[in-house]
């Protein structure tokens, strides 16, 4: 489908990229449909663009590429309701906030976006964890990726 956007002009995105957020997002309760696509091929970043509001564009970051031990608990009933399983695990994104420089960019670890790519539904959860911040620095050691952990060290 074609989407009018302020940042990219008119873009064509496949239906498979359109995610329904039935409850909208905190602060944007009426925004229920977003296109979600990679920022660049193999990038840890994605773009989330409202289908109905050309001005509403978010940058998302894959939290596991930056914080190896990032975790939160998904409500059992939600996992069942959403049809998550080992064959269809939830995909997790965090919302990035741009600052004056990329070094100052932060991500919101307390409100991850969870997507079921099979049913194409999503939601922004609010988790409680005193170790995480709504403004966690993404690049505390400069704009680069940490070396990937060895396979044996990777969490489940």
């Amino acid at each position, binding site marked *: 489908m074609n989407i009018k956007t302020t940042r990219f002009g008119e873009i064509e995105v496949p239906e498979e990229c359109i995610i329904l957020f039935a409850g909208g997002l*905190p602060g944007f309760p009426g925004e229920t449909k977003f296109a979600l696509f990679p*920022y660049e091929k193999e*990038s840890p*970043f994605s773009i989330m663009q409202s289908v109905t509001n050309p001005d509403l*564009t978010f940058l998302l970051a894959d939290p596991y590429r930056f914080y190896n031990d990032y975790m939160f608990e998904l409500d059992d009933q939600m996992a069942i309701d959403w049809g998550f399983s080992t064959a269809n695990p939830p995909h997790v994104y965090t919302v990035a906030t741009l600052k004056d420089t990329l070094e100052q960019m932060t991500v*919101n670890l307390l*409100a991850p976006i969870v997507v079921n790519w099979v049913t194409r539904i999503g939601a922004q959860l609010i988790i409680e964890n005193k170790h995480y911040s709504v403004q966690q620095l993404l690049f505390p050691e400069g*704009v680069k990726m940490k070396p990937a952990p060895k396979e044996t060290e990777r969490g489940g």
Partner: protein
Amino acid sequence: MLVLTRKPGEKIFIGDNVSLTVVEVKGDSVRIAVDAPREVKIYRGEIYEAIIAENKAAVIAGDMKQLDGLKKLK
């Protein structure tokens, strides 16, 4: 806005499915029990407000060139 006075043990119903009970008042703290269907999300006010503020701050303003430095990251 409706403002009510309640004593410990007393309740407030919001609609048909949500009730608040004042459990205890101690100094400047009030303990409240919330009874609501599972699909009704309940958050502490300051947390929910912080998420709203951060979402609004996260909307990309300006052009995408400011992100060019991220292109090299794989």
